């Protein structure tokens, strides 16, 4: 399946990754090569095959809904790029 440059731009926007305009052609070419390799899958008949998400077909284990973690807010805030008054700072989002 070939992929067009405008599709790469759309995917990059979804993935929240900026791509420089000068690089978009090269990125498109590399991803086209990978998708071409991946296209071998389309020839396989999988009509009766159940998709496998976990190699051991394990089911999701649940635990009791109880608070078990101690509050380590300060340790986690200490490694953030920008905090103030216990809050994470981001550029202004509300005018």
């Amino acid at each position, binding site marked *: *399946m070939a*992929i067009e440059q405008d*599709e*790469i731009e759309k*995917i*990059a*926007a*979804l*993935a*929240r*990754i*900026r*791509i*420089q305009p000068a690089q978009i052609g090269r*990125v498109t070419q*590399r*991803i086209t*090569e*990978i*998708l071409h*390799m*991946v*296209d*071998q*899958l*389309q020839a*396989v008949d*999988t009509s009766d*095959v*159940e*998709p*496998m*998400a*976990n*190699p*051991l077909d*394990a089911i*999701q*284990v649940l*635990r009791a809904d109880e608070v078990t973690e101690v509050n*380590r807010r300060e*340790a*986690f805030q*200490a*490694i*953030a*790029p*920008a905090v103030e008054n216990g809050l*994470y700072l*981001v*550029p*202004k*989002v509300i005018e």
Partner: protein
Amino acid sequence: MHDKTVAQLTAGLQTGQFSSAELTRCFLDRIASLDSRYNSFISVADEQAMAAARAADERIAAGDAGPLTGIPIAHKDIFCTDGLRTSCGSRMLDNFVPPYDATLVTRLNRDGVVALGKTNMDEFAMGSSNENSFYGPVRNPWDTSAVPGGSSGGSAAAVAAGLAPAATGTDTGGSIRQPAAFCGITGLKPTYGRVSRLGMVAFASSLDQAGPMARTAEDCALLLNSMAGHDPQDSTSSQVPTEDYCARLADSLQGLRIGLPREYFGAGLDPATAACIDQALKELEALGATLVEVSLPHSHLTIPTYYVIAPAEASTNLSRYDGVRYGYRCEQPTDLLDLYTRTREEGFGEEVKRRILVGTYALSAGYYDAYYKKAQQVRRLIKQDFIDCFGQVDVIAGPTTPGPAFALGSKSDDPVAMYLEDIYTLAVNLAGLPGMSVPAGMVGGKPVGLQLIGQHFGEARLLNVGHRFQQATDWHARRPADPAVEAA
């Protein structure tokens, strides 16, 4: 001291031939004087290591020591270490100092292991050559113009060069076994879920698994005894009971049935590497094993299947790097979208961005069924091939890689050619099986690895086969030229 196995070092520590402080100093000095040649470490933890060594010496003196107490090891820089920078080979985490330890680190610390530092790796474990590191490539101690393999290239090179007696690694598509093969050491990827993933930076969560890298199968067994086991904080960690992985090392191989998948010996395998593997198989036959030809008919689909599933899971896992809570943040963001997109553009390297884009595409509306669901269906067919084989044989064997370590730069501009390097290792991750690489020959001065694949939770059997092979051969005892000896 630097060329001894973990088992030999344990004996030396417990009989008082040397202290952990002396041993740790020896390795720290070797790292300081030699690692500029290999670039195998990203961070060295001098002070913490010496403090841990002194604590281990006290435990040994008090008679409270286990087999790993006082043994120095290196951790792949993918495992969170409390208070010690954990970069995952990425600019994104260049400034990240975790406030907690990975479960694997906690377990090894509990048993008295001394952490020397954190080893270099392909960024977010994505690569087969260790050339995708923000901290520069690692060089293979056997030939510094060649790659060490990846993604656990720093761990493999450090052990091969005698900068650590053992190391931790992770394997999502071959990242323990392939560098172990390229560097002439022994590496084990356990069954999916055998070792906790808590605190191991996530790449592809249904494939990722941590394991030991060392000189011998026996050393890998000693490390696995500490690392393995259920972790209530990792919901994918297995509740299947562990065993003493050293207990059956010396068992006879008489009657062992070894399957040789014909797909692993065909075109694409370097003839000199094939000759080494054939010789190793003859050795196993002489030890009492029976060789049986088997088939894994979906082998040609493992690379396309992996390169949908792994990028899809990576695109989800790596969405957490947003420049808000930890890690890299771009300068002067103009708005929230600019903060996200520029942080991720600048913080991730080329291969990581490529895989995020492929994964985002495979999961996006209109393509999910054609790519992601299809790959999950073929994944089941690949696993079923192995289940069918294990009806006839106990262990599967073949080459770990198509050839010996390739030259730095020779594949770095062609992602698909690089992906083909993992042709023999990817299926093991897709099927969740344990796999091991043991040194089995030399081609042009570079090591060759024999891959052994076991049944789910069959680690003890693999280690047994590896150990018996190493009792009968000396490939694991070969060392690359040591620059410290040349200088002396």
